[in-house]
């Protein structure tokens, strides 16, 4: 038996186990949540000393105010065409997510993950960077592919593991990869991509290139050692990289307090590495754009890495395998005060006179049709559930550049199997 040795002159120690404010059955109420006003965050020069950004790690870069007007020094003053592009991308992602979620429910594939509520982050980030820059994403940055014009059909073929999947069905659905679009292969192992992004950026610096990298991680996954490796190497070598934490406040069933958010913001991690840090309203597409633009200019001008925390909310379940009502109130996602990024950008564009309900309905129709059409096309190449084992020898390829004898033997055995 473990022997506690409490002495009379000492208080009893106690373990603190963080608990989210609301559990199923509670009525979520965020009225006391302090949200800095839009426009109130200062915008330091991109070449500033990292310490100048440090007040921002406990602030929130917000551009869209309560009336959906763009305000303050972070307003990126985007061309309406760019706004409409980001908006279009966000809507595409949401429609795509809904469709593929249903496809999974219909048994057409094994798994799916949405990014509902987080659409602004990847799409606006993509808009703020060069097309040649590379992303090391997690599974919740499908918006990057959409924004960069990767064909929806190809995304669906990956999800269906069908013959149109250029990865030959080897990866779990949504673990996309596309070299041409600068979208690094998604890993099932959380966190691994974060220091990889730093390595890519170091390589770019070694070669005197001008392309930069952006690494992505979830709030929960920041606890992995990979996070620390990324921060350390980025800081030591002043790598041209943007390190982004998407704090959607949940990691499957555990809230962000289990990752440390009770004690400090994720953005504040930047300080201990002498790195610039920004905390950004992730549901505000303009703020996302502005922050990523700032960090990319900083990196590109050899002023070092930036850690950005995107503060957002995972509006739906973790994945098709998850039912969030087991651990948080059903109403929480609606109670969440930072709103829907799509609605917010829409209202902003309408306020500018650059958008209206009519065009909005037309866009939704157009995109729904496009997604439907893509789905049909993808399904022509098959869905997971009707995968037979034709072409099964392909599963023995690509372990190595050249197939060694032992794998060739195994392939031959597999081909004869069941004969």
């Amino acid at each position, binding site marked *: *038996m*473990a*022997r506690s040795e409490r002495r009379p002159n000492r208080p009893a120690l*106690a*373990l603190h*186990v963080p*608990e989210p404010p609301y*559990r199923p059955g509670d009525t979520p109420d965020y009225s006391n949540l302090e949200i800095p006003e839009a426009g109130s965050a200062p915008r330091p020069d991109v070449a500033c000393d990292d310490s100048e950004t440090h007040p921002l790690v406990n602030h929130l870069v917000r551009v869209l105010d309560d009336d959906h007007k763009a305000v303050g020094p972070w307003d990126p003053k985007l061309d309406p065409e760019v706004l409409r592009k980001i908006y279009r991308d966000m809507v595409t992602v949401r429609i795509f997510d809904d469709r593929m979620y249903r496809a999974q429910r219909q048994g057409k594939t*094994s*798994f799916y993950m949405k990014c509902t509520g987080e659409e602004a982050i990847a799409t606006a980030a993509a808009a703020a960077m060069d097309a040649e820059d590379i992303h090391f994403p997690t599974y919740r940055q499908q918006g990057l592919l959409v924004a960069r014009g990767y064909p929806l059909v190809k995304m669906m073929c990956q999800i269906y*593991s069908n013959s149109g999947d250029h990865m*030959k*069905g*080897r*990866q*779990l*659905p949504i*673990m996309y990869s596309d070299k041409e679009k600068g979208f690094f292969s998604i*890993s*099932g*192992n*959380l*966190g691994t991509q974060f220091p990889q992004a730093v390595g890519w950026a170091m390589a770019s610096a070694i070669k005197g290139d001008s392309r930069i990298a952006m690494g992505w991680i979830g709030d*929960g*996954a920041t*606890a*992995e*050692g*990979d996070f620390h490796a990324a921060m350390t190497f980025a800081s030591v070598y002043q790598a041209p990289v943007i390190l982004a934490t998407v704090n959607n406040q949940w*990691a*499957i*069933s*555990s809230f962000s307090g*289990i*990752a*440390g958010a009770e004690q400090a913001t994720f953005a504040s991690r930047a300080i201990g590495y002498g790195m610039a840090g920004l905390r950004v309203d992730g549901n505000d597409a303009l703020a996302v754009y502005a922050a990523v633009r700032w960090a990319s200019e900083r990196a590109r001008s050899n002023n070092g890495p930036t850690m950005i925390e995107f503060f957002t909310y995972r509006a739906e379940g973790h994945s098709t*395998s998850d039912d969030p009502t*087991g*651990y948080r109130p059903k109403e929480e996602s609606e109670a969440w005060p930072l709103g829907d990024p799509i609605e917010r950008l829409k209202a902003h564009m309408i306020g500018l006179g650059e958008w209206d309900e009519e065009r909005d309905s037309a866009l939704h129709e157009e995109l729904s049709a496009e997604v439907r059409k893509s789905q049909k096309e993808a399904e022509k190449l098959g869905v*997971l559930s009707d*995968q037979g*084992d034709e072409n*099964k020898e*392909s*599963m*023995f390829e690509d*372990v190595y550049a050249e197939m060694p004898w*032992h*794998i060739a033997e*195994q392939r031959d*055995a*597999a081909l*004869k*199997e*069941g004969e």
Partner: protein
Amino acid sequence: MAVMNMIQALNDAHKVAMRADEDIVVFGEDAGYFGGVFRVTEGLQKEFGKERAFDTPISENGIVATAVGMAAYGLKPVIEIQFADYIYPGYDQIVSEVAKMRYRTAGEWTMPMVIRSPYGGGIYGGQTHSQSPESLFTHIAGLKTVIPSTPYDAKGLLLAAIEDPDPVLFFEPKRIYNGPFSGHHDQPVVPWSKRAEAEVPEGHYTVPIGKANVVREGEALTVLAYGTMVHVARAAMEEADVDAEIIDLRTLVPLDIETIEKSVRKTGRCLIVHEAPRTSGFGAELSALVTERCFYHLEAPVERVTGWDTPYPHSYEWTYFPGPARIKTALKKVMAD
């Protein structure tokens, strides 16, 4: 007796152990409030409080490392790694610390703990929810490796593992959490409730670590298997109508060599079945041991039926999985001449 599936049996083992021993603490990713993604730790936080059953940051390294500190204090950590595929970030702490502590300090500090983790394929989990990494642990002196194949064994072995003075890797074949599996993925799954092994005694009992289970006696050959593959091998043998002696190893280290030797000496033939990749899988060790110890009784070379030496591919699940067809091919070889 109650009828339980494997998840319920494992959950019950936790409760029985935690009621009896206040020093047991349970933690892991999503293992607290929610009770784990497979629900093995469901209800523990409610019954035993947040200090004894809690969620952790997503750091397998931190989970194992803090368990080391707790074991040093005198607690008995029973920790969950969400999927065996995610155990690698904790590998250094397991290999360099947990495994070697008793030895390096000549018993001054010991590391009684259980590291539970669902493992294995057959669930369309792709490369990172399907792995069988057991041989990466059987190579490490100081660790025990246990794999149950039925609800009865799951509860009894988990209780034995918790009571063991040494660290135990406890791999749970997730494919058979809810029911045994014949290997024919196109046939409906029979739930555990239809099977005798789902009869699980209430309260405390143990299934000893280091003892294999002869699940079927036979004369024609010896089949060595564990986890899901016990059921797949059994189904294959029944379909092939061979009088196989099937041994469920239950524990890989320390291995029940006596039972294996006795059987192979009797049958003269040996077939090994596991899901993990072939090269340097645990089947290699079994094959080497059987040959070393029973060579003059063998009528044919020991055969291995394994997963292939590739990562686990999402859509070719059943080409990868060592199912009945692969077993039967090997059977023919092992029974030849």
